[in-house]
């Protein structure tokens, strides 16, 4: 039986790991390489690593760092941050990365999705949607510039277009819930899931492993990404990496309906 994937999402700034709250106030959390090694030793299902400043700073991805991180991962690694063209994507794949994630570049020019997907296959192309709920509405709007600028684009309509362009997976990132551990946005999951037939991964607000189990029960197989949940501990938000053991994972996920 296919299980939902439980995916730590790590944010990189200045070559260090940080954790944000609502996309601001980055708190330094440590060395990315050691974190990746620990998640690997904990047999994480997959790992997402996002360089949150590469696009803002208009610079190339840190290929050396990516290569080092990939060499410590015996599970699929998805890298995002600063990818604007096919040749960057190909270079990153050659360093041992399974999937690339694009965000701003797809908003600027959606055809980059099909350009990369047609070369490497949809399964390796993840598009990230940073979204905020519109006030007085059930709709969600896609934001860019690290969640600061509204694009005017509706999340659902955009998701449908991305599927048509050949995206293999959508990473739906809830800006308002980022770093809060208040619980995933179930309404958001529902509307995006209903709109597309490709796998989706939800990020932002994960509060506990038990909550993840409930989400799987409600929605079936889905990607469950989280940052704070795997990196902070307790009421003082002590930095300590955690991840369900294989047994805990089995118990959490194999109670689902499928």
């Amino acid at each position, binding site marked *: 039986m296919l299980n939902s994937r439980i995916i730590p999402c790590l944010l990189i700034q200045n070559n260090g790991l940080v954790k944000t709250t609502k996309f601001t106030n980055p708190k330094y959390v440590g060395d990315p390489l050691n974190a990746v090694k620990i998640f690997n030793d904990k047999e994480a299902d997959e790992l997402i690593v996002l360089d949150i400043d590469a696009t803002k700073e208009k610079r190339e991805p840190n290929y050396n760092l990516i290569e080092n991180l990939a060499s410590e991962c015996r599970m699929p690694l998805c890298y995002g941050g600063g990818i604007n063209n096919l040749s960057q994507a190909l270079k990153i794949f050659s360093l*041992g990365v399974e999937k690339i994630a694009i965000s701003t570049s797809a908003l600027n020019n959606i055809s980059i999705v099909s350009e990369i997907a047609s070369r490497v296959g949809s399964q390796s192309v993840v598009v990230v949607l940073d979204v905020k709920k519109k006030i007085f509405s059930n709709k969600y709007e896609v934001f860019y510039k690290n969640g600061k600028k509204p694009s005017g684009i509706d999340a659902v309509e955009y998701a449908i277009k991305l599927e048509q362009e050949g995206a293999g997976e959508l990473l739906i990132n809830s800006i308002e819930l980022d770093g809060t551990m208040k619980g995933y946005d179930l309404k958001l999951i529902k509307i995006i899931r209903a709109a597309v037939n490709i796998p989706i991964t939800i990020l932002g607000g994960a509060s506990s492993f038990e909550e993840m189990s409930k989400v799987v029960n409600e929605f079936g197989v889905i990607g469950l990404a989280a940052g704070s949940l795997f990196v902070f501990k307790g009421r003082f938000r002590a930095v300590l990496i955690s991840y369900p053991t294989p047994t805990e994972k089995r118990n959490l996920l194999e109670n689902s309906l499928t």
Partner: protein
Amino acid sequence: MITIIDYGLGNIKAFANIYERLNIKVKIAKTKNDILGAEKLILPGVGAFDFAMSQLNSSGMRDAIEKAVVSNKVPLLGVCVGMQMLANSSEEGKLDGLGWIEGTVNKFDKKLFNSDLYRLPHMGWNNVNQSNKSNLFCNVPDLGRFYFLHSYYFNCNDNNNIISTSTYGNTFASAVNSNNIFGVQFHPEKSHFLGVQVLNNFAKL
């Protein structure tokens, strides 16, 4: 010595890293000369069937690989699209496959099951049911989990070629074998300890 065929697709580094940590010598093959004298071959692959076949055909290595595998019986392990390429053809594309294990590659049929429950690609960790005992799965517990990422599957003409099955709506062949030729649909290079075990087993065949 494990020779990993680099024809432009697949996570070559991941395979190389694993073998290096197992203290098993690795060689990356980019030209036909690199194939000469190979003891074991790995054919990785991601992405679309036609693209993979055309890359392999234009790599300059195809004939050497064919000679090594078909004539000289050098063991070969095809991974993901690398496994699918072993078939005669694929629904996904127009080009011929290698035809080394009789069968066709078909897409998961969405009409057969509720697409709200099953999305494509088949993406994530799934059980591998060892249907036919094989040394490829030595020390790998039955129903062990491996990482899958694909939308097409291998339909064997001869069921005796199937060494493991997995279920995603349909039950399909997750590993195949015919003499010296092996194929796995999952990614052993990205499946933690069990994946390393499979790669180690292949090296020790």
